[in-house]
């Protein structure tokens, strides 16, 4: 008697397990046509750049549908595992679902295979989901353009990857931004990196956080779909760091102080 591994199965693949249990990611694509005039809720400005200790990821909190502001407390930077964050721009429903699948995928892999998934494997996993989502994206119902930030414990290096809607991934060595407010701040990021006091990668955590808060406020100034910080209502941008110690979100108390100091004129 001989045993053969089924070549059609991939050990530790949660997405495959989900499909076996009846979950269908693309069933929605095959049967749906986007009716004209439909407005879907969309996310707006997120950014990431390398700093001295790792990577900073930040995003505004506004979700819009057409001209309407739907929500001012949307979290667009989502933890995937202890060392990985995903920042989303696009349709939150699809993006949140992707994040949920990825979270379970990485944890399921780590627990079942008793080893952490490689950074390359994690990057590929998101690429695969985006590819599965092409139908929804082209119909205008589920386009997502994420930023993926992770820390590679083997190489002792943080990595940022930017994806297009079809699933192609691009490794970013300095900075990236996505969403409707991103064109405003991409130029500033480039300028800061080339001609600022220091290149972004050499900046301290506090300098990096200050810059991120200012960039999001600037984006909000020019893009109606990006929400400003509103300290009086305790609405602050989401700011998180990915370092050798894992991810860490700044809490509201710290953000209140940082917003106050960062947004003061003339500094």
């Amino acid at each position, binding site marked *: 008697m001989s045993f053969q591994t089924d070549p059609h199965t991939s050990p530790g693949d949660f997405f495959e397990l989900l499909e076996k249990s009846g979950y269908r990611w693309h069933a929605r694509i095959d049967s749906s046509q986007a009716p004209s005039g439909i407005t879907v809720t969309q996310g707006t400005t997120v950014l990431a750049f390398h700093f001295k200790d790792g990577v900073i990821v930040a995003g505004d909190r506004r979700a819009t549908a057409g001209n309407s502001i739907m929500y001012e407390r949307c979290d667009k930077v989502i933890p995937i595992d202890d060392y990985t964050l995903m920042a989303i721009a696009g349709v939150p429903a699809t993006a949140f679902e992707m994040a949920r699948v990825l979270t379970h995928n990485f*944890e399921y892999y780590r627990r079942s295979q*008793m080893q952490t998934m490689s950074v390359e494997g994690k990057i590929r996993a998101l690429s695969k989901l985006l590819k599965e989502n092409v139908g929804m994206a082209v119909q205008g119902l589920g386009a997502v353009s994420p930023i993926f930030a992770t820390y590679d414990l083997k190489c002792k290096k943080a990595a940022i990857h930017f994806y297009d809607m079809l699933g192609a991934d691009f490794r970013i060595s300095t900075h990236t931004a996505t969403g409707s407010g991103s064109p405003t701040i991409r130029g500033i990021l480039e300028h800061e990196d080339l001609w600022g006091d220091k290149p972004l990668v050499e900046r301290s955590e506090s300098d990096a956080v200050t810059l991120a808060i200012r960039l999001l406020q600037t984006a909000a100034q020019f893009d109606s779909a990006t929400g400003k910080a509103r300290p009086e209502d305790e609405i602050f941008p989401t700011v998180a760091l990915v370092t050798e110690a894992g991810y860490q979100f700044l809490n509201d108390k710290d953000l209140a102080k940082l917003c106050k100091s960062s947004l003061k004129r003339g500094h």
Partner: protein
Amino acid sequence: MFEEPYRWMEAVSTRHSYVQEKLKMGQPVLSVPFNEGVLIMGFAPQPGKIFEVYDRIALGGVGHPADVERLRMTLLDMAHLEGFNRSAQDVTLARLLQFGIAPALKQNFEEIQRAPYIIRLLLAELDGDGHPHFFRVNYDGHWETFKNGTVIAGNEKVMEEVQKKIQDTPFATFPLNKALKETCRLWDESRKQEEDDENIPKTLKEAFDQWYLEAAVLSGKVERRAIYRALTKEEIGKLKSSVG
């Protein structure tokens, strides 16, 4: 052949004897509370006794490695699907056992044409309120729950002796180091009650040198979602020098 009830009962009884005989050499796995969470530990000639199942759930197994692996994967699949479809808060050990593997194990054991699982499982959970839960699952699907920790071993007599000692020890008040030392001491005592076997280490020091100590904690102090943490080589090295 099995149309008569007596023959079916006889066959089931024979299966009990067969599985118990096969399990006999299984080395104990202990799980106890400590002041910050739950500790699970065991020595074995090969690693592969203690596992993470879900965010707040750990598993220990004795028996045939392939059977332990199969049930581990079943638990993993169930827990992750439930966590994805509902919420991580809905993934509880009681549900996984009562509605998941216990009925399946019982059915498998009583279908006498099928090979029985040669296993005994220990499952530990630290719930969202910080309360520990301990479960012991037998190869026939029978499961029990314990408040102050539990143990599984191949030899039932050894298992019951160690269980009594666990019940009498205030583990929940111990810091991790003390809980580790005390569980090592209980493991050492359990070894002395077993029949002489030249393959089993004679002292704790020999166990540390020749076998693997696997130990993990579910820590209530961790702010992450997943609270399982395997003890590091350094922590085990320190323990070895203090008890070995």
